[in-house]
């Protein structure tokens, strides 16, 4: 214990070679796995590397990507939301129902998104003011929202054949060769990834999730943070629901059954911790891409759909196990 200032070493330690740092990042590992799978599939199936398949695959994960953004931010703040699947379906159903009742589709969509935001705020209230656990509150909302979907539709899908083309354009149109859905997805991903990394607002989300009490003792209004992340997650569900409605041209009350598990799995594969305090948007998106790629590969290879859940569950377990050991070694 001499009095040397060891901070001088800090500069050299930060200059870890770029490649080494890249290697250590979780995102890199995921990209490698995705590329490997991509390569294998290109040989395994002649249909894989076709424009139509690529497009179908990216459409499949693009909208889920919005949900995974909300979920990741919520997980970082220390929460969880089991209601994403049903709230997404509810947005679709409410907007569709309003439209069939004669409301302008844009207004109907705005109202549905507002309703979802309200649901998020409602859950946030129960978590932060009443003091219940996210898991229980969102479990209740999951069931309630699904019930509301069935109530509004009588359990049958609402056909929205009269949706104006400019509305359907959100879900079905393209800019050049690129689907609008993908554009929306990319905008959200880039915006939220940047904000999460750089803004003071989202840094407070990390502080809160890492140690809520320490955050409170640092003058951060942790309840407000958790309230907002809970609300944001539901708002994104609303937006996703509207995009799905525009894409399918219908509102399905049973849409997104079990979706919450896929979304949570993707976020966790991408590095989010259920204990809060860690996670990244890029990682979570890669998680969603991986799961979606696996699903479509299995379909192309004619693997029974019944196998798909088993395989996806195993991937989740494997990813989390590997990460656990990597973290242990680093710690």
């Amino acid at each position, binding site marked *: 214990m001499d009095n040397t200032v060891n901070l001088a070493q800090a500069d050299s330690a930060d200059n870890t070679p770029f490649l080494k740092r890249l290697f250590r990042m979780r995102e890199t590992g995921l990209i490698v796995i995705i590329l490997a799978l991509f390569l294998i599939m290109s040989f395994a199936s002649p249909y894989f590397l076709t424009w139509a398949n690529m497009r179908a695959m990216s459409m499949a994960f693009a909208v889920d990507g919005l949900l995974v953004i909300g979920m990741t931010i919520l997980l970082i703040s220390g929460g969880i939301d089991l209601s994403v699947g049903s709230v997404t379906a509810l947005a679709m159903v409410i907007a569709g129902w309003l439209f069939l009742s004669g409301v302008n589709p844009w207004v109907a969509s705005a109202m549905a998104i507002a309703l979802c935001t309200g649901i998020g705020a409602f859950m946030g209230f129960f978590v932060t003011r009443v003091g219940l656990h996210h898991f229980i509150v969102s479990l209740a909302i999951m069931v309630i929202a699904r019930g509301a979907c069935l109530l509004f539709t009588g359990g049958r899908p609402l056909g929205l054949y009269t949706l104006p083309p400019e509305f359907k354009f959100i879900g079905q149109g393209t800019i050049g060769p690129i689907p609008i859905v993908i554009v929306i997805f990319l905008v959200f991903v880039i915006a939220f990834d940047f904000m999460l990394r750089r*803004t*003071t607002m989202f840094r407070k989300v990390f502080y809160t999730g890492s140690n809520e009490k320490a955050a409170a003792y640092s003058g951060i209004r942790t309840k407000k943070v958790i309230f907002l992340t809970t609300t944001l997650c539901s708002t994104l569900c609303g937006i996703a629901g509207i995009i799905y409605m525009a894409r399918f041209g219908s509102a399905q009350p049973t849409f997104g059954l079990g979706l919450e598990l896929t979304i949570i799995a993707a976020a966790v594969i991408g590095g989010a911790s259920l204990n809060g*305090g860690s996670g990244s948007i890029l990682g979570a998106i890669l998680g969603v891409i991986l799961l979606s790629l696996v699903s479509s590969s299995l379909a192309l290879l004619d693997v029974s759909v019944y196998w798909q859940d088993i395989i996806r569950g195993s991937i989740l377990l494997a990813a989390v196990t590997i990460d656990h050991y990597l973290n242990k070694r680093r*710690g």
Partner: protein
Amino acid sequence: MNIVMQDVILKIENLSKSFGPVKALRGVNFELKKGEIHAIAGENGAGKSTLMNVIDGILQPDSGDIVLDGKAVKISSPTMAQQLGIGFVHQEIALCPDVSVAENIFMATTNVSRSWLMDYKKLEREAVDVFRQLSDIDPSVLVKNLSISNQQLVEIAKALTLDCRILILDEPTAALTETEAQTLFGIMRNLADQGISIIYISHRMVEIFDNCDRVSVFRDGQHIVTNDVADIQPSDVVNAMVGRVIDNLYPEKAAEGAISEETVLKVKGLSEVTRFHDVSFELKKGEILGIAGLIGAGRSEIVKGICQLEGDVTGDVWLNGEKLALRNYQDSIAKGMVYLSEDRKGDGVFLDMSIASNVSALKVEQVAGPLGLIQTGAEEAQAEALGRKLNLKCGSLSDPVSSLSGGNQQKVAIAKMLSVNPRLIFLDEPTRGVDVGAKSEIHKILRDLANDGVGIVVISSELPELIGVCDRVLVVREGRISGQVTGEEMTEENIMHLASVTDAQASVA
């Protein structure tokens, strides 16, 4: 002292243990006699915990022998250590809060029991027996309703039910007040007289010299010296621990005239519904004010109340002459009044986040640009400047705080306070779990800050620390200020008297 039997019960020979490149223990030798209280002293990272974990079977040594009763043994797990009669009371209390004291004690016994069915009657009888010699805790109360010191006793009882012959106590008094600690020492001596050998890990010289028979000092994974406490001085132990001569454990007090007439903080008639009543005091510029009191007396509650961290507080507070109307802790930070928490790991730092982002946490906006975008460069520069000031030892500023030693973690927590250029800092147990070297550095930092005109209020359960560091000490008892001491009056006896004697008792005396 009164060691009747001098047989060596446990002998460690040439023991080494490495974690990767770090040599935690290098060829350590150690002897424990039957019926003695053997203190182990050393700074954090000296190898004390590693050695204890090896003895308890949690870790396996790379080389060297453990000899128990003259036979070399291999202790492969804590369960095996229990069977060999080794009990370990860890520093952190690990009890189930929602079940009774008796059931908590059953936990360990049940685990090693060979019978298939639980014999509740026998266990309950044993629990009562164990407690008869320890204290008057009712074995049927829930652990969460016990004070920390009584919980510590339950931990000890748990170890004792296993018929242990060697009892390891890892800083058991860290969470205890003086009186509670004294009770514990009485129990320890009692156990030693019954032939149980106690290994007692502590940072506190007073405890070691008042209560132990021998002391062994460790430094950098090596055994430095073992001596009868009667033969050496506390300063010898401290010097052996640090490996250099520490002339003064505590920094100089405020120089003549350094305490100005200017008032930094004035508190008048501060009350909280249940926790404290009618608290009034002042803090002058250049002065370090201490707050003493038993645990639960309301020390922390008062300062948390002043900066609006918790509680429903009434009364008036002036900071540098300005009357404050704080609505919450954010307002307090904005006015430059900050609180360093007593529970570093629980609520002081973000263990899994980087050092730099810990330091900036109090006001992240300071290291952000106009759009609320965090400038990583500015954030690291802030952490580096404060780290240099506090002599922080770390690898990289992007390492998580969990990678640092206790003393350096505390420096990060203090750097966080300093990041907002505070006008007043409340420090609650600023050196708890910090080794001697870092401790005296922190004390010096406090004095430097006071000399720079920053208001410093220190709460501590360690009376020598308060007496050594502060210019004046307020004593709190049952939510009220029961008195203050300054200059020559600052003695442990005076403070303890104010902290524990009720007015009725005082008037009788």
